[in-house]
């Protein structure tokens, strides 16, 4: 099956900044691929290369088998949903949605019909006569969505479409986009830095950093089997422990830090014995030990530092050493008090070890957020 959108070695520089550094990505027909990455990693730049508003300094962009690198934006037949909605303020909702049809020479009656149909799809029936400023934020983004799907473009690009909406609305709109995609089957690239959004919405996720895609895969793959320290760090808000690799066998590596030992799954690129290493531990793989640990669990000692009540659960900040603190979410059935010493069990399947080579900063940078 041929890819619907393909980026081949796309390079884009702004002066000294390399926003896209030989970016490669292929999106299949009907697939939704998320570009996930921290602010400034080049997501918008990549998207703007696809729309044609930016001209890559190198590489090709292929849409539906056609090399569009030299095709101007308006001939690419792409739909875009913008972060700030970007509705035409001087046109009514119906005219906004009908605009792409209008520039395609669709007659007024049919245009209206199709615009109203698109508005119905995004559940905005009856608001066609309003101007964008008379709509709430959520409604405006629905209009943006309707405008992007009305002409059934080959692909639809989303640039953080939900980040200007409040939390509840964001959830609702996420569902909306997912169901629209199921019904209409469009191919899309979806930019976000919200990992939850990415995990729940995507067929595949491409994790980006500094203009390079680190890993592409299904959400479960990306989450469960991160290939680089950055990917492990970026998703799932993991706990982190830095130390030295002391043992490496067929199915596990053991890392020792401040007198504590932790076992992680062995991968092809796991650290060698004697090398500095960082272990990422999924919070859901950590529990308070009661009784003895099973063979595939490591035991760690910690002190409770702080607790935060979250409604359905409580989050505890635990200190493993002076410089390492973990967070752990517990149901109310277990209660810890601040100052209490506890034994933790970390499931090996939830731990990944990476060598701290020249890319040492991968871990240390982001680590701050996990330890906060």
């Amino acid at each position, binding site marked *: 099956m041929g890819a619907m959108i393909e980026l081949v070695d796309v390079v884009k520089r702004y002066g000294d900044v390399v926003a896209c550094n030989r970016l490669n990505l292929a999106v299949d027909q009907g697939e939704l691929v998320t570009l996930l990455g921290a602010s400034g990693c080049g997501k918008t730049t990549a998207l703007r290369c696809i*729309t*044609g*508003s930016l001209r890559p300094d190198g590489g090709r962009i292929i849409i539906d088998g056609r090399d569009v690198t030299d095709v*101007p*934006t*308006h*001939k*690419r*037949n*792409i*739909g*875009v949903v*913008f972060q*700030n909605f*970007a*509705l*035409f*303020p*001087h*046109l009514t909702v119906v*005219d906004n949605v009908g*605009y*792409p049809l*209008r*520039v*395609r020479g669709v007659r007024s009656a049919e245009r209206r019909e199709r615009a109203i149909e698109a508005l119905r799809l995004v559940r905005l029936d009856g608001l066609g006569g309003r101007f964008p400023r008379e709509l709430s934020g959520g409604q405006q983004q629905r209009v943006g969505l309707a*405008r992007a799907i009305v*002409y059934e473009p080959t692909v639809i690009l989303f640039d953080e479409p939900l980040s200007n909406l409040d939390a509840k609305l964001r959830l609702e709109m996420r569902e909306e986009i997912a169901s629209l995609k199921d019904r209409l089957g469009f191919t899309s690239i979806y930019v976000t830095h919200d990992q939850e959004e990415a995990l729940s919405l995507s067929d595949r996720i491409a994790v980006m950093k500094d203009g390079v895609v680190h890993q592409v895969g299904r959400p479960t793959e990306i989450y469960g089997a991160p290939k680089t320290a950055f990917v492990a760090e970026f998703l799932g808000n993991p706990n982190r422990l830095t130390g030295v690799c002391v043992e490496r066998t067929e199915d596990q590596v053991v890392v020792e830090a401040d007198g504590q030992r932790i076992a992680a799954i062995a991968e092809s690129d796991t650290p060698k014995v004697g090398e500095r290493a960082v272990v990422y531990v999924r919070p859901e793989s950590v529990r308070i030990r009661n009784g003895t640990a099973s063979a595939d669990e490591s035991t760690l000692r910690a002190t409770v530092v702080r607790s935060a009540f979250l409604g359905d659960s409580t989050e505890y900040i635990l200190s493993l050493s002076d410089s390492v603190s973990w967070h752990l979410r517990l149901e109310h059935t277990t209660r810890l008090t601040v100052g209490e010493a506890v034994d933790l069990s970390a499931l090996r399947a939830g731990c990944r070890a990476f060598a701290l080579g020249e890319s040492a900063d991968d871990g240390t940078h982001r680590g701050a957020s996990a330890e906060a």
Partner: protein
Amino acid sequence: MAVQFLRRLRSGGPGTSSARHPGGRAVTAALLVPAIAFLALFFFYPILITFGTSITPANGTGVTLEEYLTILSSPKDWGVIALTLGLAVGTTVISVLLAVPLALILRRRIRGHRALRLLVLAPLMILALVSALGLLILWDRNGWLNLLFSRLLPFSDGPLQIDYTIPGLLIFYTWLYSPFTILTTLSAVEGIDPNVEEAARVSGAAPWRVFRSVTLPLAWPGIRAGSVLTFLLAFGAFSVPLIAGGNHRPLPVLIYTEAAVFQNFERGSALAMVMAVVALAAIALYTRFSSKPVRGSAG
């Protein structure tokens, strides 16, 4: 009304402050009195005098509309009104044609755009007479521009006569009064969200269509606001046509000549009143017919 339109533009909405201060209405009234009294004395009263003069017969007593009737029945005077309006409209149109591309270039913040912005302001700060003098020298039959043309166009027969002609006045007026249009157009164009134009492009609109259906309608309020000013200034221009108009005398020059040179105050005053009415009517029409711009014609 036009004036209200200007006021709304200028003050940026009703500056309502809910604060009710001590002293009540008496204090408010006292604060308002100086300005009102001043304008009554030095603006409205002079207009009244002008009006009074215009309806007083030359021998001194009674009331007559003779001067107005003379103006209305004189093709020459109609010609003057048409010339004045024509120059104002022409200047406004040329200014918009100059302002829009310039604004589209300056919004991109190319290198040196700050200096260019300052340059746009220059004609506003300099005495119109000085500018007119410079333009007269520049466009003189032996001036630089004619020297340039005579070298570039070897087949041209003799120097171009620009000074003291109607095209010359249009060139001068545009130089003097277009900055108003340029500045407001620039500010309007810079206020447009680039994503909105981007949205039009990805929707399939070619560049010219994006301009026509999105950029222009969104910039229109700014273009209109500045061009009203350009229109008003061109319509009321006095010093420039006085020294650079030659035989072409727009209303202000005619009014001044009648009153100061021929001492015919009655006719001068009547012409002044006609001018005031035409000015207000013209702005009212202008704002009315430009208030619904290219809107809706997204195609």
